[in-house]
C-alpha cells in the first residue's frame, strides 16, 4: 500500500439533467414539503433529464468535457469504464456507446455495476489497469439517470434522486500522482435493503431507508479511517473527502465521527440530489483547480447490494 500511484486525473467534466426541479416544484405534485426534504436530506434542488437526454447522452457529454479539459482526443483513450445502474439497454453497454461517441473504438470498454459505490469501483478497476500496463489512458465515467428507475409518485424516494454524469480522464502518469489504494466491499446478504429494476421495468426503486442510513453512517468513516491507517496518512494530509452524495445527514454524521472540518468535505447534494454513480465524479469540476500537489483526496461510495468502496488519491 501507498506504493506507486497509478491513474493521474488530467481532465474532469460533468453533465446534468436539463431541468432544475426544486423542493417547491415537488410540493405541487407530491404530499411533501420543502422543510421536510431539506431538513431530512439537505437537498434543495435536483436535475431531471429532459427530452432526448438519458444516461448515455449525459455520460457522453461529461466525457467530451473531460477530454476537452484534459486537452486530449478521444482516440487516445485505450480504456473506457462506465459505472452505471441505469443504462437504457442490457446490451450494448453504456461504455461501448461512450467510446463510439468520443472516438475511442477498438479499445477496452466495460460497464461497472455497483450502484452508488460504482464510481469508486470503476476508479479502482481503471487505475489497476493503468498500473498493470494493460491501458495507458482511461476514461472513467459515472452516469445515472435515476428518474428512469424511481417512481415519481413515491414521496419517500422521488425527492432524493437526480440525473447526472461525471467523467475523469486518467493517465498512467509518472507514479507520483494517482490512486494509491482502494477498498472494495459488498455483502449480498443485505440485498433486500435496496432494490430497483432496469429502466422500463415496473419495479421501481425501493429502500429500507433506516437500515441503509445506518449502514452508510457506519461504513463511511470506517473506510476513511482504514485508508488513513494502512497508508500511514493523517487527516491533515487529506485536502478533500468526496463522499457519495446520498443525503447530507449521512455526510454530517460521518464528519462528526471522523472529526473532519467542514471545508474538507465536498457537498453538492443540495444542488444535484443523489445521482448514484455520478455523485462523486460530478464533484471534481468544483475542486479540480484548487487541488494541491502532494496532498490527498479520499473518495467514498456506498450503495445497494450492499456495496461500498473508497479510494485514496495522491494529488
Amino acid at each position, binding site marked *: 500500500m501507498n506504493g506507486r500511484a497509478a491513474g493521474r486525473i488530467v481532465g474532469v467534466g460533468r453533465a446534468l439533467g436539463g431541468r432544475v426541479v426544486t423542493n417547491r416544484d415537488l410540493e405541487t405534485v407530491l404530499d411533501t414539503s420543502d422543510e421536510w426534504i431539506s431538513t431530512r436530506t439537505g437537498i434543495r434542488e435536483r436535475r431531471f433529464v429532459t427530452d432526448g437526454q438519458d444516461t448515455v447522452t449525459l455520460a457522453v457529454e461529461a466525457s467530451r468535457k473531460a477530454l476537452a479539459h484534459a486537452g486530449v482526443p478521444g482516440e487516445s483513450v485505450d480504456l473506457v469504464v462506465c459505472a452505471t445502474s441505469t443504462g437504457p439497454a442490457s446490451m450494448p453497454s453504456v461504455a461501448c456507446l461512450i467510446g463510439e461517441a468520443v472516438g475511442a473504438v477498438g479499445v477496452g470498454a466495460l460497464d461497472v455495476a455497483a450502484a452508488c459505490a460504482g464510481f469508486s469501483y470503476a476508479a479502482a478497476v481503471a487505475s489497476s489497469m493503468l498500473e498493470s500496463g494493460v491501458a495507458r489512458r482511461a476514461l472513467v465515467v459515472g452516469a445515472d439517470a435515476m428518474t428512469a428507475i424511481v417512481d415519481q409518485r413515491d414521496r419517500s424516494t422521488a425527492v432524493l434522486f437526480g440525473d447526472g454524469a461525471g467523467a475523469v480522464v486518467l493517465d498512467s502518469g509518472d507514479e507520483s500522482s494517482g490512486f494509491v489504494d482502494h477498498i472494495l466491499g459488498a455483502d449480498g446478504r443485505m440485498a433486500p435493503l435496496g432494490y430497483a429494476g432496469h429502466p422500463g421495468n415496473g419495479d421501481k426503486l425501493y429502500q429500507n431507508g*433506516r437500515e441503509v442510513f445506518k449502514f452508510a*453512517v457506519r461504513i463511511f468513516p470506517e473506510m476513511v479511517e482504514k485508508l488513513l491507517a494502512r497508508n500511514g496518512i493523517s487527516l491533515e494530509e487529506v485536502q478533500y473527502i468526496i463522499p457519495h452524495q446520498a443525503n447530507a445527514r449521512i455526510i454530517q454524521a460521518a464528519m462528526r465521527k471522523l472529526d473532519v472540518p467542514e471545508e474538507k468535505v465536498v457537498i453538492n447534494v443540495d444542488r444535484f440530489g443523489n445521482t448514484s454513480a455520478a455523485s462523486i465524479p460530478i464533484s471534481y469540476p468544483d475542486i479540480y483547480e484548487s487541488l494541491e500537489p502532494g496532498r490527498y483526496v479520499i473518495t467514498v461510495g456506498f450503495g445497494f447490494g450492499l456495496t461500498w468502496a473508497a479510494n485514496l488519491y495522491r494529488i
Partner: protein
Amino acid sequence: MTREEVFEKIREISADRLGIDESEITPESSFREDLEADSLDLVELIMELEEQFGMEIPDEEAEKITTVEEAVDYVMENQPA
C-alpha cells in the same frame, strides 16, 4: 452501570446529538415532541446508545423507545453482564 449513570450518559449523548442543553432533558422528555428529534436523529441516537453501551438494539425495540426514561429502561434491562 447504575440507573443514575445510565441516565446521565443518555442525557449527555442526547444533548450532544440534538444540540440542546443537558438541563432541558428530564426522564420524561419525549425525543420527538420535547427534544424535537426527527426520524434520522433517532436512528443516530440509537446507534450511539448501541456503541456506548455495547449492545444491539433491534429495530422493533428501538421503535418502542420514545422517551429518555424508556431508553434508560431498555439499557438497564439489556446491559451486557
